[in-house]
């Protein structure tokens, strides 16, 4: 694999060059946190971060997105006809995305881009994006990516992987999309022959710093109905306040709600992120709610990520181990703990902590 060496003194200049051909996004610090934001002209991504508090999924899949516009004015010849909203699918690039977050787009793709159904907004936005990853030399204590199908130097879902090597970045060229971006930035100097070894050493060290893990190997063999009826859900869900923090911060949660919003005689049809933690998510027009209790909603979130998804796609859990839900849950519900409970559940032994 080709490795380019980017001297840090050439970093700002390269970014300036690509700003005319790409809309750039990167981590920006406000108050105590970093978040992915559109970079203003001349603004650099702040790579002095461990990870952002909200995932970068919004770069491809905004929290609120207008799909159609319409007129309700009957004098208007085309009233009550949905028209595609104007969209910008020109090239964009995310600079400094962590490997776990980049891998999450591949998981979400399984839902938005199937042989049967194709979500045009997500797919076009995703295809317009070049993912420039930033390897994690110093993973957080809550990172468990290595047992969730990813890793601090994982390349899946990335076009380029940057590795911080003191005075320079090594840029591993993963796809031709990535190569185009590097060329456009004028970063063309091949790294010296020792680079792959240096990268491998950093990767090994980062991997050894991942202190946290999940066990998932037996989830597939568990009976869905037995897990569903497991007695531990009362204990797991007790503390939950049913806010949307875990789902909104999660890079792999993809659910949305469709709303029409009118203002005077015109309106838009939009979609907004939704959360299975909210009672409104499932309530029927009749007023009946099939997931009317907190326990049912908490169970749904974990069963979806750790059982239904596993069974449906046969490609691991619907989680990349970024740890955001663990760090930000207001009441300390920990997916690692729940995953282990599910993975080791034996209905015959019924080692139920709630009893």
């Amino acid at each position: 694999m080709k490795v380019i060496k980017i001297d840090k003194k050439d970093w700002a200049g390269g970014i300036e060059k690509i700003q005319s051909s790409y809309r750039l996004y990167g981590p920006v610090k406000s108050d105590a946190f970093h978040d992915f934001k559109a970079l203003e002209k001349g603004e650099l991504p702040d790579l002095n971060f461990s990870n952002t508090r909200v995932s970068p999924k919004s770069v491809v899949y905004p929290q609120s997105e207008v799909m159609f516009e319409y007129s309700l004015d009957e004098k208007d010849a085309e009233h009550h006809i949905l028209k595609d909203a104007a969209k910008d699918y020109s090239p964009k690039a995310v600079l400094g995305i962590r490997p776990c977050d980049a891998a999450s787009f591949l998981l979400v793709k399984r839902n938005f881009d199937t042989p049967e159904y194709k979500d045009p907004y997500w797919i076009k936005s995703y295809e317009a994006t070049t993912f420039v990853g930033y390897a994690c030399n110093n993973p957080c204590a809550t990172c468990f990516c290595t047992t969730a199908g990813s890793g601090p130097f994982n390349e899946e879902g990335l076009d380029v992987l940057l590795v911080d090597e003191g005075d320079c970045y090594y840029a591993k060229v993963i796809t031709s999309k990535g190569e185009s971006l590097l060329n456009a930035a004028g970063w063309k100097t091949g790294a010296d022959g020792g680079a792959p070894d240096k990268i491998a050493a950093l990767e090994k060290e980062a991997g050894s710093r991942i202190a946290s893990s999940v066990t998932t190997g037996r989830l597939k063999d568990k009976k869905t109905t037995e897990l569903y009826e497991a007695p531990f859900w009362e204990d797991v869900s007790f503390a939950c306040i049913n806010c949307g923090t875990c789902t909104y911060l999660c890079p792999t949660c993809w659910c949305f709600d469709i709303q029409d919003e009118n203002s005077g005689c015109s309106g838009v049809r939009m979609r907004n992120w939704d959360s299975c933690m909210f009672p409104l998510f499932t309530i029927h027009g009749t007023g009946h709610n099939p997931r009317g209790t907190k326990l049912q909603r908490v169970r749904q979130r974990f069963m979806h990520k750790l059982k239904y998804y596993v069974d449906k796609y046969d490609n691991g859990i619907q989680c990349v181990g970024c740890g955001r839900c663990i760090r930000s849950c207001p009441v300390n519900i920990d997916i690692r703990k729940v995953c282990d409970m599910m993975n080791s559940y034996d209905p015959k032994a019924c080692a139920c902590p709630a009893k």
Partner: protein
Amino acid sequence: MLGYIDNIREISKRLLDEGRVDMIIGFRKGTIPLMNEPCFVKNSGELSTLVWDSNCGINLANYLTDRKEKIGIVAKGCDSRNIVTHIIENKIKREKLVIIGIPCKGMVDKRKIAGMFENGIEDITEEDNIIRVKSRGVETSLNKSDLLQENCALCVHRNPVIYDELAAPLIEEQKSVDRYADVLRIEAMTAQEKWEYFKDLISPCIRCYACRNACPLCYCPTCFVDESRPQWCGKSQDEIDTRTFHFLRAYHCAGRCTDCGACERACPVGIKVRQFTSKLNKDCLDMFGWEAGLSPDQRPPLDTYKPADPGDFIK
């Protein structure tokens, strides 16, 4: 406060063994530093899971709403005031509760501490007024009094106002605390400055409703933002909708808020949500001499009329 736990466990054991309660609601040790998890214990053999330290900031009154069991609940000053509010508002019956009062010396601000250690925190221990933080193998000792949640630093009701058991002797309340400096600062702004200030304050909001859901006062079966017939409030990131949510939520807490800080603590994006409710708390104190949840025998000012109520705002 670390010594409290032996008494909490002992009292809980007695309550469970004597059949006076069906469950104890308290905290168990969290899976990450600076967090404990609200939990219930039904079997007195499992009381060793209960913990008490300066990371028990979540308001446990939130877990009582409409429960039917006989419950033993661990309650700090603020929790006890929300229990009183729950009793007044018929969300729980006093006779269903055995309140284990905690004379509270304050909870630490998890964001403040986390922000001080960029390399992450491996472990935290505490002893009296000292918090020891281990980060990358290096231990740092800090004064707990410098790290309190803001509402705890300003608290003048640390002792439970209602209780059946006490985990420790009552403590001296904080005197001469400047509780409303922030409110006065905002009151001094022009209308335009206030508008900009609150606009910036809530700009990171992702509408996850953690502030609402962490609050024991927010128990409506369907919140106004979740109503769909009619739909009062849009669901997008439109800033008017987000403002509508925050402003109305705050007003719904007027005369009821105990300044427990649950909203602020829960917010995943660090919004200082108390900036809204503090003003209403101050107004209730100034106009009605009222602080929420101090006595189950007094009706709150906003559901009673007194001839002497201030009426200057009626033009």
